[in-house]
């Protein structure tokens, strides 16, 4: 069984690295953006699918990651401007972790709709601040994001967004996915599952529910920050639109489409959601109509998401064979 997974992984990796050479430039760009959202969705799922906390405001961290990158590149900083992508990622991790710790400490005392709405409150406050503090944040116009240097090398401008940065994003994605996989299968990750199933019982058997929820929250905040930080140079511009309740809703949709109780669910969901959105937008202006219908369809027909449905099918298939 294990060798099968490794072979599948190697094939997947080969495919992912050859793909930009074959597909049109525009799709390489789309793919890179999708991977950023996949990181964001993956982080969100440790809170949502694993711990059972539904946040309506996680675009806050996407925004914090993106704005951290943009703010550190501002020409006003003169000699202190940072262009190294690694340092920028580190800065985004630090800021989103700090904010996540602060906001999380206030939020994790509640669950259900209360947890969701307190997060919504924070993202809307942040959104309003982004609009209002225009001398720092650029208001509705946002801030420009320049081309960062990756691993100390400044890559040529022409192919950065459509080719070379893709590999960087892919590498970061692989690292954070591996880290998340380890977190999921650690005693901590399993304890989160116990908290999701029954918080009171989890407390009885000695799991520090509050602290674990906070830890899950901070992890998801950091992943949001990383996703935002990688997305900013691809977009070339950050604006307050990145952090609203609608973008926060997108990530919930990605998780449910892909399957929130499956490790790969959010990744598949992010790919599906974003690419579906782009494809539908190509041929009709009423894309949200179709998106809405498909959301309803998924909830009613595939409540476990695509991956949940696939994995039960696979189990049945292999079960019959054996």
């Amino acid at each position, binding site marked *: 069984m294990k060798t099968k997974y490794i072979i599948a992984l190697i094939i997947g990796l080969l495919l992912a690295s050859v793909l930009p050479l074959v597909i049109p430039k525009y799709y390489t760009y789309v793919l890179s953006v999708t991977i950023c959202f996949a990181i964001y969705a993956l982080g969100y799922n440790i809170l*949502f699918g694993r711990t059972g906390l*539904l946040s309506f405001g996680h675009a806050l961290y996407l925004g914090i990651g993106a704005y951290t990158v943009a703010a550190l590149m501002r020409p006003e900083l003169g000699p202190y401007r940072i262009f190294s992508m690694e340092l920028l990622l580190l800065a985004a991790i630090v800021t989103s972790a700090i904010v996540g710790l602060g906001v999380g400490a*206030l939020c994790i*005392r*509640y*669950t*259900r*709709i*209360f947890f969701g*709405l*307190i997060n*919504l*409150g*924070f993202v*809307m*406050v942040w*959104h*309003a*601040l982004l*609009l*209002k503090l225009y001398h720092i944040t650029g208001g509705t116009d946002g801030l420009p994001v320049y081309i960062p240097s990756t691993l100390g090398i400044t890559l040529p401008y022409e192919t950065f967004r459509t080719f070379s940065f893709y590999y960087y994003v892919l590498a970061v994605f692989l690292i954070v996915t591996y880290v998340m996989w380890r977190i999921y299968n650690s005693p901590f990750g399993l304890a989160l599952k116990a908290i999701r199933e029954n918080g*009171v019982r989890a407390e009885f058997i000695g799991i520090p529910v509050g602290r674990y929820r906070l830890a899950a929250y901070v992890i998801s905040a950091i992943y949001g920050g990383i996703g935002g930080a990688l997305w900013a140079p691809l977009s070339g511009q950050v604006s307050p639109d990145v952090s609203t*309740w*609608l973008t926060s*809703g997108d990530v*919930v*949709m990605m998780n*449910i489409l892909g399957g*929130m109780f499956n490790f790969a669910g959010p990744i598949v969901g992010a790919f599906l959601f974003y690419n579906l959105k782009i494809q539908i937008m190509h041929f009709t202006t*009423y894309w*949200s*109509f179709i*998106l*809405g*219908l*498909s*959301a*309803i369809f*998924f*909830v*009613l027909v595939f*409540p476990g998401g695509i991956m949940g449905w696939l994995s039960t099918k696979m189990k049945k298939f292999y079960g019959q064979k054996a």
Partner: protein
Amino acid sequence: MDPETVVIIILNGMFYALSLFLITIGLNILYGFMKVLNIAHGGLYATGAFLTWALMNTAAKAGYPIYILWLCIPVGAFLVGLLALVIEPLLFKRLYRLREEYSLLATFGLMLVFDDSLRMIFGGSPLSANQLYNWMGTLTILGKSYPTYNFVIYAFAIAVALGLWIFFFKTKMGRILRGTAQDREMSACLGVNVSILYTETFFLAVFIAGLGGAIYLPATNAYSGMGFEPIVLSFAVMIIGGLGSLKGALVAASMIGLVRAFGIALMPELELAVVFLILIITLIVRPRGLFGKKFTREEK
């Protein structure tokens, strides 16, 4: 600021607050009884406005007298209610059993469908039907003129609040509803047809949202995307006021409306931040809301 301006700001604040109130009541009913978080409620509110626009516009073009135009408001709301009778058995009945997240996603999807359908049918530009608004004329308050129609809205919202209070606390049907909200199985055992009761309750909640959209139409416009803005604030109102509390919804909606109106006058663009700061502070200090019931340990 001179007192005249303050009065006008308060009136404007209440004008906005009552639209939130009318949406929040529906949300509260749906969450209180069926445990469904209905994001599509904003879409139903918008549908109320658009359908009433269609009725009023035809009536005005045909030259019908003014009382026919008044009649358009309840008829429009009733049509939205009929829509509810279609979507409740088709969609919501299946959601009652599911987790909150699923109902949230499905109703969000429904909201998108509503918004785009309205845009498809009525186009993207704002539609106005201000015949009643103009017909009512203006009043003079402290030397400033103010539309009389707005007072119709205030009176209407108060009437709705009173009517609902009487319905829930003084009638047999209201008692059955409250009982079912507390214990669904037990009510079913006592002979209540829960399925039909839910459909009726759903109709009521949607009818009020439709009425809200309809009664606001003459004073504002029907535009695409009009359901999105109030729905987020209505969720905030629901939480601040306390889940399931009629009084809480009214107080919280007034609070949000007034804060928003003064925010727009004093520090524009920050008003949303202030509104949501109130939400955050309420949740931290008093998570059950102003008039909500105490939580049990499981609910926490």
